[in-house]
């Protein structure tokens, strides 16, 4: 039996956003927080302490370079001075927030687009289809009409998966046969949305590794074909990243941005033990806006990205 997590939403007690984010991220931050607390009981910032801190950051997938940068900064300001674990957390949080704040950008529907087209891309298994369902619910709840285009015509049962979501959410789902042309499907979906006066079209795509050039070309084709019906579309192209992904995520952003014209990121699965530090490395390197983060399996667990909350939660500040 397929579980009906959407129905669970109503019985889940509503908590403040920060509480939920912290809850979701707490597993992510547990280890980093622990390491920081463990490291800075010694109270003085010396070379050994800095190295341990750098390792703690690397363990959170911040990447060697960003970790080294942060430590260098800390070293410059505080070397050989007394510093408490709380101080370190604060400095870290400030640093992370400074990197991420300019990139906060909720994915807002612009009704003047008739329809607003959102193309969702990513490698296999990152949670594209689920993320689409979450966005769809969010838009539906805010009073927009939504059409889903089941453009993953490759993976067995992907179309069925989106159809199940569509039925649960009461959104129309446009499908084609397995192995069908995703670009053509997207085109028809936009055509239909126009005719029916639908506000948002969410276009799902098959997962693909960024180093498969044939599959990546297909993405640029989808973009081209969408552009034929509306030169300004797709209005957003969202790359979904899995929080468990390591340094490869940087390469994903680079290639998907170059080929599919990615305009923003969504990071999923932050409720696991993965720390999502790669988002900091990504922000530092590519400065791509971040729309939302997924912190749970329920359909309202997709949250707008807030740099300050993320930074605090990442380093474990109450």
């Amino acid at each position, binding site marked *: 039996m397929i579980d009906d997590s959407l129905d669970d939403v109503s019985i889940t007690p509503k908590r403040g956003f920060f509480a939920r984010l912290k809850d979701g991220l707490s597993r992510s931050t547990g280890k980093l927080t622990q390491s920081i607390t463990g490291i800075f009981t010694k109270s003085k910032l010396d070379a050994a302490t800095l190295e341990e801190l750098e390792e703690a950051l*690397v363990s959170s*997938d911040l990447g060697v370079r960003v970790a080294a940068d942060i430590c260098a900064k800390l070293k410059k300001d505080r070397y050989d001075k007394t510093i408490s674990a709380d101080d370190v957390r604060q400095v870290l949080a400030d640093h992370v927030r400074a990197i991420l704040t300019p990139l906060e950008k909720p994915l807002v529907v612009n009704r003047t687009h008739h329809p607003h087209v959102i193309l969702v891309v990513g490698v296999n298994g990152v949670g594209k289809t689920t993320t689409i369902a979450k966005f769809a619910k969010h838009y539906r709840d805010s009073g927009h009409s939504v059409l889903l285009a089941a453009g993953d015509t490759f*993976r067995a*049962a992907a179309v069925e998966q989106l159809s199940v979501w569509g039925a649960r959410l009461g959104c129309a789902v446009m499908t084609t046969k397995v192995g069908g042309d995703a670009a053509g499907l997207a085109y028809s979906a936009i055509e239909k949305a126009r005719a029916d006066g639908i506000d948002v079209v969410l276009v799902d795509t098959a997962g693909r590794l960024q*180093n498969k050039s044939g599959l990546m070309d297909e993405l640029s084709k989808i973009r081209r074909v969408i552009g034929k019906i509306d030169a300004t579309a797709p209005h957003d192209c969202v790359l979904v990243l899995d929080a468990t*992904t390591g340094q490869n995520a940087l390469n994903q952003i680079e290639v998907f941005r170059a080929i599919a014209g990615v305009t923003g990121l969504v990071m999923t699965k932050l409720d*696991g*033990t*993965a*720390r999502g530090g790669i988002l900091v490395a990504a922000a530092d390197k590519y400065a791509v806006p971040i729309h939302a983060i997924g912190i749970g399996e329920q359909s309202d667990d997709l949250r707008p990205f807030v740099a300050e909350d993320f930074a605090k939660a990442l380093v474990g500040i109450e």
Partner: protein
Amino acid sequence: MAMFESLSERLGSVFDKLRKRGALNESDVAEAMREVRVALLEADVALPVVKDFVATVSAQAIGQNVVKSISPGQMVIKIVHDALVELLSDGGDGEAEGLNLSVEPPAVIMMVGLQGSGKTTTTAKIAKRLQATERKKVLMASLDVQRPAAQEQLKILGEQVSVATLPIIAGQQPVDIAKRALQAAELQGFDVLMLDTAGRLHVDNALMSELQAVRSFAEPADVLLVVDSLTGQDAVNVAEQFSRQVGITGTVLTRMDGDGRGGAALSMRAVTKQPIKFIGVGEKLDALELFHPARVAGRILGMGDVVSLVEKAAEAVEIEEVEKLQKRMEKGQFDLNDLKSQFTQMKRMGGMKGLMGMMPGMGKMQKAMDGSGIDDKAINRMEAIILSMTPKERSKPDLINAKRKIRIAKGSGTTVQEVNKILKMHLDMAGMMKKLKKMGGLGALAGMFGGGGAGGPPMPPPNMGGMMPPGNMPPGFNKFGRR
């Protein structure tokens, strides 16, 4: 293959620096180790694994007096290579390990892993492989009642690879499905039952206990953890949690056709203490390979597939022949028959070009070969020359006078100069054998084929980890020596 490309490149540049230096001091080695550390971390190898690895390698490098050795760079590379093999095989022999199918059928294989790691696709790939290459009758069942349409996905994949799937009964719970699947497998005489479970976040205790329940009920012969090789530092947590809470007998790494980092591969064995059994190398349902730790280590270090090369050598070389040759060598005997049998071995291993293709620095080598005129044709001609000699002449080359040389040249369609070349080559090698006998070691074998009498090409630098003794021997020849 893209696999491990970027890690391979990073390490390659570290090693290139080492090779260029004639002498190394301790800070050079320390510097190289720092670079190795960063290279591994950027390839997403888990930090604790990296730290252990670097500590081990550093300790060995110091312990073995790398600094004082003749080719310190090579020593460091060899130590790293051996440590990589050790890391990937953990005391194993570096060979691939398959499934535990030698149980009373049906052998149950349970697939576990995080969401989106590729469990369902891997399930179908393994089923296809077992059915096609091992002639097993396989039944697949999906216990994934979480993700919408997951059971349908397995059913569709089953149709694609012509493997039976358990009929779906809506609303049935995982343990009940497992029961039904086991019953069906027993009644219908399936050899293997593959249970695909729901993808989950390992922090989810409810789902973990569901896995435990399935496990204790189905008593699987194998519990395979499917891990996405693009996973970052979290791979350690995943491996630890699943190992501890469910218990696994091996891992499958998916998406090894990604951008070539694959650091998770290096972490998995170290953390789970279980072998990596398969790797997924593409979206097609036959894109599944056995995992050969030693070969992967070679690939990572940019050494070409030296292990496959040696394997080929082992296939081609007849042990008795080698032992015979070895005995003769020990006595300092080496006649034209021996030379010929070496040519034959070489050809059996795919000829010069074939050998070079499996070796590192192949591009450079092939150029050198083209320039030197030693190619497979040359070997054929040399063989023809020896074949045109009488058995007596072959065992006692001293007999060959000017008149005989003309006859041999005519018989083999070559010239007297070429006959002379062979005789000179043999003389050089025989001299080497005598030297060897005096020294009582194999080290003197080194110059045998290098820049010696044959006018052959300089052989590649011995940068093949433990595969070759220092010197200029072609691959496979040391194999003769060792057996």
